[in-house]
């Protein structure tokens, strides 16, 4: 039994190490295949640090929800919708800080809707959020008539600096926000009792309910977290682009799931690690960027994602097999 515990702990820690190894591998490959090793240069890394976190913030929310046993396919569309909401507040000359709060509230609303329909309607979240994905995208297209809209934040330098500026002369604000949110979610998931409720709900909802955990509330709250994070990412992105585009977020829902899976999250729920999801998100970000720098067609992205996902699922299987053998000793 003692050997088993040590091996288990070792392998769990190694799963994170395994994800980190994949990240390093992808960075190295990306560097070698980029013209003049551009990938690893400061300019590119800074660039990654500005737009990468937008996806990363969405991905950590999606991963958290997967641990609770649910999926959210609507994040890409909610991103677009929230971007439109923020753009409107800007058009109406509302103070952008207030605009941010209004947009976050919109994110809460989308998450609440997803959560309530899933738990009360007892509809599989995959289906609920598939519908939501189409609804919010459709609504956004309809309300914006598919047109891009510019935003103007010149009179709010503090706002733009706080969210998209460079801190201490070199650190992109978005990267700081991303890291801050990763730290918060890591604490919530692994050190707070709500996190234990998330794990319990995802691993064995019957047991969780038998222990008086309100699994409906846990799931709905987690959907809301996804909504808020997506809204925040939408604001960051809209400020950076200085515009609303109805096509943003396209494909993000699948990439976010990929990030979570590569980071060690089980598709059936109950298993996952926030640091792993964070690293998984970095891997996705790096892959996309590396493909651009290697001047490869965008279509290659999905193929490469596929390879990386399969590899990490095989890694998971390998670890599980090792554990089984250990307990037979």
């Amino acid at each position: 039994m003692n050997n088993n515990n040590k091996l288990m702990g070792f392998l769990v820690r190694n799963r994170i190490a395994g994800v980190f190894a994949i990240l390093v591998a992808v960075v190295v490959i990306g560097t070698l295949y980029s013209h003049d090793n551009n990938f690893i240069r400061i300019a590119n890394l800074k660039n990654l640090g500005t737009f990468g976190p937008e996806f990363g913030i969405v991905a950590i929310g999606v991963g958290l929800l997967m641990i609770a046993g649910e999926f959210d396919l609507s994040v890409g569309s909610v991103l677009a919708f929230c971007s439109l909401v923020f753009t409107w507040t800007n058009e109406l000359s509302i103070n952008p800080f207030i605009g941010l709060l209004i947009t976050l509230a919109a994110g809460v609303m989308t998450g609440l809707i997803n959560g309530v329909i899933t738990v009360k309607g007892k509809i599989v979240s995959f289906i609920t959020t598939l519908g939501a994905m189409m609804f919010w995208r459709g609504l956004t297209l309809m309300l914006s008539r598919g047109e891009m809209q510019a935003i103007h934040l010149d009179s709010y330098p503090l706002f733009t600096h706080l969210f998209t500026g460079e801190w201490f002369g070199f650190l992109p604000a978005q990267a700081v926000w991303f890291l801050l949110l990763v730290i918060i979610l890591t604490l919530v998931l692994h050190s707070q009792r709500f996190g234990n409720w998330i794990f319990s709900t995802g691993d064995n909802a019957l047991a969780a309910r038998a222990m008086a955990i309100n699994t409906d509330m846990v799931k709905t709250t987690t959907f809301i977290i996804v909504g808020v994070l997506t809204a925040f990412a939408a604001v960051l992105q809209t400020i950076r682009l200085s515009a609303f585009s109805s096509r943003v977020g396209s494909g993000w829902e699948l990439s976010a799931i990929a990030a979570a899976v590569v980071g060690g999250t089980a598709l059936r729920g109950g298993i996952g690690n926030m640091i792993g999801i964070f690293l998984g998100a970095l891997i996705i970000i790096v892959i996309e960027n590396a493909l651009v720098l290697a001047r490869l067609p965008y279509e290659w992205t999905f193929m490469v994602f596929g390879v990386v996902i399969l590899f990490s699922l095989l890694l998971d299987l390998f670890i599980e097999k090792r554990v089984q053998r250990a307990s037979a000793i």
Partner: protein
Amino acid sequence: MSMNSGNSDVLLRLEGIHKWFGKVHALQGVDFEVKKGEVVGLVGDNGAGKSTLIKVISGYHRANEGKIFWEDNEVKISSPKDSRALGVETLYQEQALAPHLSIARNVFMGREPSSRLGFMDKKTMNTESMEALASIGLHLRSPDVMVSTLSGGERQGVAIARAIHFEAKLVILDEPTIALSVKEVQEVLDFVRELKGKGISVIFIAHNLYHVYSVADRIVVIAHGQELVNMQTKDTSVDYISKIIVRGTLGEEI
């Protein structure tokens, strides 16, 4: 088959419990009691009403008629919360533990000791979960072990230790020995003896009469929603009980 009423060593008493599911009369005026520190074996064939009776006690179903007394006070059990508040812990097979969570996280599931901000006191969780296991004779190395790596018997032990730790007065075990190896069955039966040793009452449901016999003080047979037999284990035999269960009614050989 008499009942002692107004007796201070009776923990739980059900009087005249009826339960209908539509037209199905699942419980037909059942009287049932459990004394403090007593192990009651509840047996009967499938569909007899054992599960329904247990669900009434644990609050999943509300009785249509009848009274429930806890420590001689009449109570209403309308939900699992009510039942748990009285000190009843029910352990169903599939509901007990989260396989990929550690022992500590499982033992404290839903009742994690936390600071006001919600941060779990992991140190307490670790030490107390190990203590709870040790108190029923289960000595495992670490509270961080995933429970799926434990044997079936050990897993039952964790679930039982959890019930004790939260000061259950009555533990209901629904088929705790199913699918367990011979050694694991003995482990579970030992845990039941430990429970009894601590003065905790147990309702033990099983199809395997030999398992029930080795730990129960009293045997109750339920058939067609009625109590057929209520005898001290020492006054009856596996043979007699199984005949009654198969027949579904009392025969000539009382």
